[in-house]
């Protein structure tokens, strides 16, 4: 029961659950085609980005949800992963250092991806080591600073040596190609035409599934329980024989690795990276996905990721036409409306569902026992 992929399943018998699982997988596999037909190609791209956000949110969930370490600079690891991919997969290094890399690096995707994850994990330890003694607000401030430092470095490392190409960013990044098949071109497989965005969707879906699987195993593992003990009471955890230093570093590293891997996927998908994609606002957005959805609960975090990634796009596509139909012109910019709605949603969730939209098993039980106690 513990190991079953039960995150999307709530009620019903065994057969019903199997049927639901099959239905869900089928829907996910057909999702790009359904979206394409119903909403248009642009929306498939939006769904692809939503998947990247889900991966990021799940990675941050390890740090914040499991280990209870508030990280406000998480997007920095996404940036590190993205720049790893961008530097190795673009002509930039060949142009900047013709002596060292006459033809650029251009490694295989299967080498760059783990490399990006590892380097990001290294940065995670780099952030974790000096902040071991910090908790709560203090840790949040330091991580916020760390995120900004990374962004500012990326912005300014075009001189004295041009490593990151500064604010212009790095373009002409190689598309991801899986076993010789480039995902940037329309491919025909078994007579079915798969446009590029569809191909990326399946790649991201596979990685999201992997991230979900790893998160689930971690949650139930000895490591996961030790993280939760640290989250609850660090002194008691240490008195239980938990090596709090190593486990906190591990949480930072694991979270950062997920961030780095999704960063590499982002760079390959987008074909262009620049420091402005990695602003503080992005870190806060990912944190909101975790908090809004339900900290520590995988299904909740996925829900938060989907909602917050799709919300701005839904607004953009509905607010302007709606206003034009009502007033004949666009009065409110959808972007400013987005922040208004976002703030409102956040306040509403914190007031009425403080544990998130889809709280974890334990949080839910916590609320239930409170009610039970009151009845007694």
């Amino acid at each position: 029961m513990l190991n079953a992929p039960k995150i999307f399943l709530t009620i019903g018998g065994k057969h019903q659950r199997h049927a639901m699982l099959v239905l869900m997988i089928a829907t996910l596999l057909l999702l790009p085609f359904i979206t394409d037909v119903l909403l248009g190609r642009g929306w498939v791209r939006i769904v692809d980005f939503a998947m990247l956000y889900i991966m990021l949110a799940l990675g941050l969930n390890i740090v914040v949800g499991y280990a209870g370490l508030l990280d406000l600079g998480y997007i920095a690891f996404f940036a590190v992963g993205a720049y790893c991919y961008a530097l190795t997969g673009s002509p930039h290094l060949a142009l900047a250092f013709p002596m060292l890399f006459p033809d650029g690096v251009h490694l295989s995707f299967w080498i760059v991806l783990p490399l990006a994850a590892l380097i990001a994990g290294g940065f995670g330890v780099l952030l974790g080591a000096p902040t071991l003694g910090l908790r709560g607000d203090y840790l949040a401030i330091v991580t916020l600073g760390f995120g900004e430092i990374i962004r500012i470095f990326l912005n300014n490392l075009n001189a004295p040596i041009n490593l990151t190409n500064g604010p212009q960013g790095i373009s002409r990044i190689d598309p991801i190609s899986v076993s010789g098949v480039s995902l940037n071109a329309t491919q025909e497989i078994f007579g079915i035409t798969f446009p590029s965005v569809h191909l990326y969707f399946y790649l991201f879906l596979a990685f999201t599934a992997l991230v979900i699987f790893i998160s689930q195993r971690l949650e139930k593992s000895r490591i996961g329980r030790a993280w939760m003990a640290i989250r609850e009471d660090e002194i008691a955890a240490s008195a239980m024989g938990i090596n709090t230093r190593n486990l906190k570093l591990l949480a930072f590293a694991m979270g950062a690795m997920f961030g780095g891997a999704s960063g590499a996927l982002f760079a390959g998908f987008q074909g262009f990276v620049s420091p402005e994609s990695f602003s503080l606002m992005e870190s806060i957005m990912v944190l909101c996905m975790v908090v809004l959805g339900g900290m520590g609960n995988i299904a909740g975090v996925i829900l938060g990721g989907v909602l917050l990634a799709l919300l701005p796009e839904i607004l953009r596509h509905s607010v302007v036409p709606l206003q034009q139909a009502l007033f004949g012109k666009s009065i409110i910019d959808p972007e400013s409306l987005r922040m208004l709605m976002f703030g409102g949603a956040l306040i509403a969730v914190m007031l009425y569902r403080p544990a998130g939209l889809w709280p974890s098993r334990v949080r839910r039980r916590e609320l239930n026992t409170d009610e039970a106690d009151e009845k007694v």
Partner: protein
Amino acid sequence: MSIDSTQNHINPVRPDPSTGSGLKADVEGWAGFDKLSPNGIKNSSNSINNCLLEVSDLQVAYGGIQAVKGISLQIAPGELVALIGSNGAGKSTTLKTLAGLLQPVSGEIQYDGNSLKNIAAHQRVSMGIALVPEGRGVFARLTVAENLQMGAYSRNDKSEIASDLVRMYELFPRLAERKDQLAGTLSGGEQQMVAMARALMSRPRLLMLDEPSMGLAPLMVKKIFETISDIAAQGMSILLVEQNAKLALQVAQRGYVMESGAITLSDEAKELLGSEAVQRAYLGG
């Protein structure tokens, strides 16, 4: 010191994690929860003067402020020793240092004949030193059963852990009733039981209790102290830190009185209970 030498052998020999592969817990029995058996293992690893824990001239400071100013104390195997004193005397600081949560400025801690210098808190747990922290420190959002499981974090003998869990529920029947509840929803006394059972789950040889009576109703305090005497009667070595001097000295064999970072008195618990100085300072006349 009044130590019954027959209690000596029921403390099982624990492998030293700094030398051996570590966590294979003893199968023969465990100090607290097996009845005294005459054919137990002879514990030969104690130092010559027969101390499980020997602290000499321990000094601890927070930044520039010295909280513990060179104290010395001993605990023999199977002994219940009380460390009493008023607020801010340095009792909790002493316990935290013994558990490895604070680093001493100077002084020596000998445990089972080995120095604890440079041994981290988590390693001390697998050597058999368990701390029940001040304010209990239960994992509020984990269930009672999960809390107890966390206590056995330093062990990997699954079947033994399961049987210890059963013993804990026998020792604290209240916890058995509530094993699937979140620890944070329990009463203070029940949380203290969780904290004690959790510490016992590591199969300690030395149990250190930090203010177990803190914030509890008098009836619950009585119950907790009865349990402490029970555990002690079964041969566990216990260091009990308390503000409630009378209660602590009633269950303890020996006591130390701590005042502003130094030990001012040490004697048999009975003597201390009767002593005028202690009466005046801690027992309200």
